[in-house]
């Protein structure tokens, strides 16, 4: 038993580190601010968006496969701009457009997938380019305007499960987390993603459909961004070209903090979501304490370094 536990803890060291930090953050926040234990208050004050959490899930898969997708937040903005344009200029009802959120997102993601998987270009540069391109097209479509969403579309965060604090976006995040967990750890696709990250050459030699898996991965990443676009449109009530700008850094930070190797091959959904919660709590805690959002990023940066230091130090100790 002891031996088994020791091995498991060595293997999941990053996840344990994040869990520990999360516990410390919870206790500290709760001690400083008793209201913190009030779930309603916590969710209400959470400055970190559920969209970030959702994107963290797919980004975990992308980074696990040894890739990166910087363009997700631009896809998010562009899908919003496309839907808003179709709605306002061509009068397509928003309810009809809803399924096209993920669909458009997936199509945009397939552009990344094609360039990375079929043309063999590095995903860092490809998605850097599409990040500018997609955001730019959104800007061409909308300019600096805020396009209002119809009232029936607005306010998803006020929909809650009866007799609970669970609002719809949070519920969605929980469902998506479970789905991502199952996808990564229980499906053939998830296994392929992992082995491609561990050793892409051996994956090819083993008959793993590397290119196809990679394209699907980027499509999935884009589709999730499209879904998040709907969520954001509903929460904010407007479409803008600069929606979610810069959030990709929060997303990548959460994934790396959660123990996913930036070189691919290692990582868990649990670690990512725990890191997302940790960041959310730290930010909420700082928000309660009156720390400006701009300064909160410093704390997140330190958190990231701290997690990597801890992992490195313990690794050496072994």
């Amino acid at each position, binding site marked *: 038993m002891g031996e088994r536990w020791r091995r498991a803890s060595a293997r999941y060291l990053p996840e344990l580190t994040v869990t520990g930090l999360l516990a410390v953050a919870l206790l500290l926040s709760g001690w400083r601010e008793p209201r913190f234990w009030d779930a309603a208050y916590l969710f209400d004050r959470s400055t970190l968006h559920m969209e970030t959490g959702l994107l963290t899930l797919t980004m975990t898969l992308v980074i696990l496969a040894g890739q990166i997708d910087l363009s997700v937040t631009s896809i998010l903005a562009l899908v919003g701009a496309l839907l808003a344009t179709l709605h306002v200029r061509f009068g397509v009802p928003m309810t009809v457009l809803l399924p096209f959120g993920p669909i458009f997102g997936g199509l945009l993601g397939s552009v990344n997938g094609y360039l990375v998987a079929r043309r063999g270009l590095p995903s860092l540069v490809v998605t850097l380019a599409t990040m500018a391109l997609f955001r730019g097209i959104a800007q061409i479509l909308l300019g600096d305007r805020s396009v209002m969403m119809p009232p029936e579309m607005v306010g998803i965060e006020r929909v809650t499960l009866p007799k609970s604090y669970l609002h719809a976006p949070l519920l969605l995040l929980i469902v998506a987390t479970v789905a991502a967990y199952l996808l990564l750890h*229980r499906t*053939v696709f998830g*296994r392929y993603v992992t*082995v491609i990250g*561990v050793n892409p050459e*051996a994956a090819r030699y*083993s*008959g793993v459909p590397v290119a196809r898996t990679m394209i699907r991965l980027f499509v999935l990443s884009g589709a999730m961004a499209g879904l998040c676009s709907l969520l954001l449109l509903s929460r904010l009530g407007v479409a803008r070209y600069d929606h979610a700008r810069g959030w990709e850094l929060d997303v990548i930070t959460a994934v790396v903090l959660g123990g996913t190797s930036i070189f691919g091959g290692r990582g868990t959904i649990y670690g990512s979501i725990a890191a997302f919660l940790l960041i959310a709590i730290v930010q909420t805690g700082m928000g309660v304490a009156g720390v400006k959002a701009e300064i909160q990023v410093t704390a997140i940066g330190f958190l990231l370094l701290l997690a990597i230091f801890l992992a490195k130090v313990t690794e050496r100790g072994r």
Partner: protein
Amino acid sequence: MSKPDGSVLLRTIGLSKAFGSVTVLENADVELRAGEIHAFLGENGAGKSTLAKLIGGIHRPTAGRIERDGRPVTIRNPREAASLGIGLIPQEPRTFPDLSAAENIFVGRLPMRGGRVDWKTLYGRAEELLRTLGVEIDPRRPARGLSVADRQMLELAGALSLDARILLLDETTASLTPGEVGRLGEILRRLRSEGKALVFIGHRMEEIFDLCDRATVLRDGRIVGERRVRETTPDELLRLMVGRAMGEAVTRKKVADGPPILEVVGWSQPPRFRDISFSIRKGEIVGLAGLVGAGRTEIACALFGLSRPTSGEVRIDGRPVEIRSPEDAMRHGMALVPEDRQRQGAFLPLSLRENVTLSSLPRLSGRGWLREDDARSRTTEWVRRLGVRCREIEQPLRQLSGGNQQKIVLAKWLETGPRILLLDEPTRGIDVNAKTEVHRWIAELADQGVATLLISSDLPEVLALSDRVLVLRAGRLVREFAAGEATPEAVIAAAGVTTEATVR
């Protein structure tokens, strides 16, 4: 300054090296003398490269010691080796493509003047070095686009610029054309006459007898003999190289006489291989022999859809098929156990279960969902059948020995139930017991009807297992032997290891 010929510049005493639980070199004693070209001979995996890399500072020994001019020394890295006057020229030269040829020679110690690179001195010295080597490379041109031979010359020049007294050339001729080999030979002779101690690693007898003064033969990580080249014959060296009895005789039950399953007709992929035609019957093992670089691995990779030939046809069960990817190959019942286990076969951080079942996931899943119970029972079954020594099937593959890792890679492919098995160096770097077990399995699979292409540098292995042996030389099939007529000497002669000059 230069010592009289024959004085010992470097001596290794009981040098040993193990990677994890696999011993690749044991108790090696050699002496490198001034004014001598000393050959390290042996099959792939015999330990000759390892010995050179220990002297060159690339690896560190697990036991034993090295003496330079009679004084014990520790060589922790290539830089320390260089400071002791030791230079190692690797088979694949290290090149900095955007630096000039001259800079490639002097990288890390460019001549400086007033805080700036002294280009005049640099180019002058490079030109001089290249001239003494007798090669025509413009020292100003970037190294990008230079041939392997030219880049090896840059490495050699780099070692010489450090006043290296001991030069180790690791399979330097493997990827050279005959003309380039000839030129290299002249250079080596000249260096010998200057009193340097040279180590030449290779396995082409013609080169050994043309160039070398002394030969040390290694087999299975041990030195099995040292001869003065003048006092020996190719036959004697070959017997030393391959003269091992098989661990246990493998007996084949049946004779394959059905129609061919796999036929390859007029296959070419220049410059790797040309006009290759052969076939394999159900239950037949066809050995593919030849030197490293003769195109054996390339043929296997092309069959498996990892690269495309430029012309020719493959037929399976008599019907022409198009194989564009490993997935296509697998659909036709093929499996490839690749040459480089670490890079192409194994997923070291993943569990045995994840490794064994990877290529069979479509079968071990339902609608995309993994069926882990089946995966576990299949893995347990293979671990038992192949006698894999492990703690549990959930432990990472990394923790297993080389031989057991290889069995897991083999299990990954056997689990797919192949009809055509392509084996590329299936027993490289694994211990004798594991080797015997793998041999038994190859024979048993053939008896069950699997058509097997066996690529191996281990001649006794090829000869013992194969029904027919094809010999590949410089990308062409040059001989075919039936099981009875193939002897190590005949195969080696056909592969181009002769005392005659190579014909192209």
